[in-house]
């Protein structure tokens, strides 16, 4: 059922000066799924994200999103189509307040982002929605804190709220729980579950219990190529996967 697939790659390949970081990857992400992309360090997961969102140009292969070939678009244009990424290291605007962070995302929808003559008060209309989004990630109490002062887990939550402000259709999350304490991980998992309603999520995640908890489909990447694909039970029994993960947790 091809129209059930929202995001697809065909023979996606990226070479860095002769080193093949992503090698002929075929991905098919079903609409509404929470799909995991896992693999050992250096497998090429972040690079795949960079290719999907056009932060890096692909050496060859195509990316098809909602039936449209987006391989040649500019990265901002990809984001405007609703395919939005997060980053492996937390991506916030550190010197803006928490509220202002979310406002940056909402502001694009106003269509006044080039208006250099308009007053700041014109952004006040966004505050209601911004606070709603912050409340959804338990950050409303911090609305006027300068972001750099937030603890790490809260920065990641803010990043999610900011991303959600765009109402993305497909969300690419690069290690959303990396560097978090156990408690924060629980919160983020609950959050992802909550926001997955009506959306498609593709996530890179090293924390396998989280993957087992959340994801319907798992694609295992190793040395740039797809090693296995299936649900958690299938993938975790695959001998090739076990071999690739030697030394890592089962």
């Amino acid at each position, binding site marked *: 059922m091809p129209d059930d697939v929202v995001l697809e790659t065909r023979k996606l390949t990226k070479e860095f000066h002769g080193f093949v970081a992503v090698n002929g990857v075929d991905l098919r992400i079903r609409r509404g799924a929470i799909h995991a992309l896992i693999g050992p360090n250096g497998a090429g997961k972040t690079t795949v994200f960079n290719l999907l*969102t056009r*932060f890096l140009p692909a050496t060859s292969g195509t990316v098809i999103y909602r039936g449209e070939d987006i391989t040649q678009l*500019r*990265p*901002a*244009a990809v*984001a*405007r189509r609703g395919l*939005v*990424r*997060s*980053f492996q290291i937390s*991506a*916030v*605007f*550190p*010197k*803006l307040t928490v509220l*202002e962070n979310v*406002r*940056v*995302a909402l*502001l*694009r929808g*106003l269509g*006044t*982002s*080039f*208006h*250099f*003559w*308009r*007053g*700041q*008060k*014109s*952004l006040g209309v966004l505050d209601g929605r911004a606070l709603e989004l912050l409340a959804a990630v338990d950050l409303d109490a911090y609305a006027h804190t300068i972001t750099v002062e937030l603890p790490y887990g809260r920065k990641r939550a803010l990043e999610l709220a*900011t991303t959600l402000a*765009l109402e993305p259709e497909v969300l690419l999350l690069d290690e959303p729980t990396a560097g978090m304490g156990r408690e924060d991980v629980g919160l983020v998992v609950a959050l992802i579950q909550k926001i997955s309603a009506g959306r498609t999520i593709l996530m890179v995640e090293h924390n396998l219990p989280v993957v087992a908890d959340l994801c319907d489909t798992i694609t295992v990447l190793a040395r740039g190529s797809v090693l296995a694909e299936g649900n958690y039970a299938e993938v975790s029994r695959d001998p090739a996967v076990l071999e690739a993960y030697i030394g890592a947790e089962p």
Partner: protein
Amino acid sequence: MIATEPAFVPAGSRRSGIPWGYAVMVAVGLAAPFLVYPVFAMNVLCLALFASAFNLLLGYSGLLSFGHAAFLGAAGYVTLETIRRWGLPVELAILVGTVVAALLGMLFGVLAIRRSGIYFAMITLGFAQVVYFLVLQMPWTGGEDGLQGVARGKLLGIVSLQGNLAMYYFVYAVFLAGFWIIHRTIHSPFGHVLRAIRENEPRAISLGYDVDRYKLLAFVISAALSGLAGSMKALVFQSATLTDVHWHRSGAVVLMTLLGGMGTPMGPSVGALLVTALENYLASYGSWVAVLTGCVFIICVLAFRRGIVGELGALVRRSF
């Protein structure tokens, strides 16, 4: 007008200090021609506007241009030449100078904006050198002598600007208007996006912003206001000279901005005042001026990392 504008309280001044700074600035500006030599005061105002325009790029967009003298200088030449050759009224001549600077900024910007950091600085420097060369070689610019002795004319055809006091208040009004435009820009939706881009460019892209377009607009606004400053400056001295297109001038504006405090609204103006005063005061030491300014600069940057206004702002915040 600026002293009563309430909108500056929320975002920009939180980082930089002191709302009453604006009130002091307005008061000092009004009294200045009675306290110091008016031409000196006008020179400071023009350079303060120039540095503030530069700060819009460096402080609020994170772009270090090393070619801003091109806008200042070229606009000065154009303004005087349109008065001299075509007898354009003075307001119109200033406008033409400003527009030429904006177009030049558009050209620089389109070609340089995709680069970042030191590459951006190098490309802008390169273009500014081309402009310098053109000014030196073109038949109408007077070569080494520049354009000299152009009459200031009458404002709106009524008020003679030949007297220094009238000219001073005209310059002061233009400075306030330019300063207000910058203030507006920083606190606009556009300024909000600019700050986001400066803070984290990849993230701004991932939120769907074509960051190059925002940077380009910031660059053009900055170039236009630098041109406005240059037009006024040429009119004040009734001459346009190579010093204002020389790369020394591009360096001086970096110095003023850092000294006063980049990313603070008032810092560049304070920096412009200090650097100009220092140059005037030290003028009798001949070529030692450069060395002495350099030393003062090094001491200040070591002692006040955030610039003078930046440090003051931090001090005020700490004591409350």
